[in-house]
């Protein structure tokens, strides 16, 4: 047992710091600072991803031969730490973290050759078409039809909670290609151009008044069967692999650290009763200390998971635990930040969150994103498998361990 970083890891951290110092523009840093969800302002995100691509770092999780890296799990965590510390905008996770690994695992040689470089360079911007109005946690009950007509599939139905569909030119989606007793058995995985006739993208305004999600409608949309990933009716298997991948590489503690830092900065100036800054109010600091201890527990649990992944295969239930704990703790910190924002959470000033905006805003600058992030992060225990579904997965593992 030891907590030392290797000399390679220490050198790697310096290399990342040096890269970020030169690559991040003030615009990108403002976008990073003003982020209110898992996505940053779109243009800043894309610019940052292109800068990473120039450096060969756009897809840390991919194998080297496809333009990825050979970083260890610790190095990937270090990379995220440094990006967060430098206020980098979030990169677009959908193409790189979600679709890329699927194409690498299930794609044809041609699909890999054509699609992977376009993901890295941002030539293609992907969105994910999984959920439907009647298929949320019970994803396997999805109904969007794909009928085989000649060499095409004809798509009818709709997808919802499609993040960034209004910016994307492509969607990967799960469709029903066969009615079968077991709902999982009749699902296929299609890659769809969003400019095809019959597709309508309809933005959904979130609680913060901004658009990140869309509903996408399909009416007799013809998609060539060459645009299928994997075999027909193999979609569920592919999606499951994706869900496991999605939960593997992300480090929650990094973003939580940033929230904690912001809270401490806010608490140094915002005052509780009697002109005492919150940071000197024992009632407040006791609560904050508890949350910081919880963050530390999560951080070291993430390290435990990262350092054992290689030998012990899939993260499984442990990654469910990280997801539940990370998102619930994030929400607790959001609530605390909202309290510190006090009366200044009331002014509606979304324009101040635009990375191009440099003018004055009402209230302290630090914490300008707090109210919107609080609202957006209510979704964090819903998307990617609700906290309840994750607890089901964890319980199944704990019960199975006892051989029952």
């Amino acid at each position: 047992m030891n907590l030392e970083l290797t000399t390679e890891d220490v050198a790697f951290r310096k290399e990342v710091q040096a890269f970020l110092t030169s690559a991040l523009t003030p615009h990108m840093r403002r976008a990073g600072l003003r982020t209110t969800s898992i996505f940053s302002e779109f243009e800043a995100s894309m610019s940052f991803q292109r800068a990473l691509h120039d450096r060969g770092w756009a897809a840390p999780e991919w194998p080297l031969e496809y333009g990825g890296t050979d970083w260890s799990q610790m190095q990937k965590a270090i990379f995220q730490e440094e990006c967060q510390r430098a206020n980098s905008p979030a990169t677009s996770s959908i193409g790189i973290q979600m679709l890329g690994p699927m194409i690498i695992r299930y794609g044809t040689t041609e699909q890999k050759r054509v699609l992977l470089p376009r993901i890295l360079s941002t030539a293609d911007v992907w969105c994910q078409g999984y959920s439907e109005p009647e298929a949320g946690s019970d994803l396997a009950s999805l109904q969007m039809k794909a009928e085989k007509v000649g060499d095409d599939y004809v798509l009818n139905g709709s997808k919802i909670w499609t993040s960034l569909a209004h910016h994307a030119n492509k969607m990967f989606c799960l469709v029903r290609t066969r009615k079968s007793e077991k709902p999982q058995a009749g699902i296929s995985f299609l890659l769809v151009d969003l400019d095809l006739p019959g597709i309508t993208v309809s933005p959904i305004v979130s609680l913060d008044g901004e658009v990140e999600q869309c509903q996408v409608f399909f009416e007799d949309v013809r998609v060539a069967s060459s645009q299928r990933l994997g075999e027909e009716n193999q979609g569920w298997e592919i999606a499951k692999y994706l869900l496991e991948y999605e939960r593997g590489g992300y480090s929650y503690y990094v973003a939580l650290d940033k929230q904690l830092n912001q809270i401490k900065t806010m608490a140094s100036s915002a005052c509780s009763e009697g002109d005492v800054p919150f940071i000197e109010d024992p009632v407040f600091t006791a609560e904050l200390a508890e949350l910081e201890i919880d963050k530390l527990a999560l951080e070291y649990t993430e390290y435990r998971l990262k350092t054992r992944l290689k030998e012990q295969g899939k993260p499984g239930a442990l990654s469910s635990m990280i997801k539940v704990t990370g998102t619930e703790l994030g929400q607790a910190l959001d609530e605390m930040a909202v309290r510190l924002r006090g009366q200044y959470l009331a002014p509606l000033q979304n324009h101040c969150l635009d990375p191009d905006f440099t003018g004055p805003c009402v209230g302290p600058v630090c914490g300008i994103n707090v109210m919107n992030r609080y609202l957006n992060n209510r979704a964090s225990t819903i998307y990617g498998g609700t906290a309840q579904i994750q607890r089901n997965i964890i319980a199944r593992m704990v019960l199975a361990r006892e051989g029952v």
Partner: protein
Amino acid sequence: MNFDLSEEQHALRESLHSYLRSNYQFEQRQATVAGPEPFDRALWQECADLGWLALPFAPEQGGLGGSAIELMLLFEQCGRFLVVEPFLETLLMAGGVLKRVRGDDIDTRLNAIIAGRTQGALAHGEPQHCDERGSVRCTATYQGGAFALSGRKAVIYNAPTADFFIVSATADAVAPGLARGDLCLFLVDSHQPGLALTPYQTVDGRCAAEVNLNGASVDSHRLVCSGDKAEQLIRAVFDDVTLALAAESIGAMDVLVSETARYISHRKQFGRPIAEFQSLQHSVADMYMASELARSLVYAAAIKLREGAQDASLFLAAAKAKADKSGVFVAHNAIQLHGGIATTDELKIGHYLKRITVSANLYGSRASQVRRFWQARCEPSKQCSSPELAA
């Protein structure tokens, strides 16, 4: 960074586990607790023969030089099996003081501890304080080559079986090498005149006593440590204690999670195993998470302590605070999911709650750990936040 045990550490854990599995089933433990002796002396002797009593001591003292990792492994198993033998009191507390001081008969006593022939207790806690931070009100008055010790020590675990005590007291007058107010640690034999015990059993199956010092006259060569050194020594001893208690809790939680999962899988109500009910599944998931999160911090704290890292005390406080909170949560849920049977003395589940609750309050409260964490967090830079966040 890695959290894997070395081969030797793995072997230690396995041998502790298999020994206790064979010799420390709950029924055996309860028989010991109900018996005339406070603990099983034959078993203690076997532990000595197996070398486990030598773990915390340096090779030059006849020990095995076990690090904080080995201590964590030892106490995790103690926690799993609800061990009542005085590993903590004799090895880490009384022994923990002795191994950090020099003196004529110190090595002899350490050898006796390692051989299983002697028992000790640290008489430090007082009615007003119960960890290293409170000021010690017991006094040491210097009179012609000896000290008179007066005052009261509270809830001293293992005192009824102790052959010797380490007694803390505050110098109430100037003495050779001492300033008024200095903390003093004395090595006192149990038959010392002026030392009186009021012994009792504890809710967690052990023995303890109130210790009264009525002007007990102790030779000045029995003063083993004083002043700043004594303060540091007590802190170091309680660092080990903190880790050990937190490690006990993660061992206990592991058992509680497993036992509960097994129980609800077999217990049938409404015609099916109650594990099929989602509310129970979610409780089990929460118990598992609480247990694993605490485990991660205990690992981190053990590593930090082994390395003498600057932030070791921060991690120890965090680990103990988390282990206490998780431990109580897990134990409460284990009882709830077992139902009425777990509220009885017959089942071991409730006995874990008793130990965990005592552990959370014995040598400093949860609140004091959280405060300690917060102070350590803010101390180095005198600033709790980083400045880069101004947009």
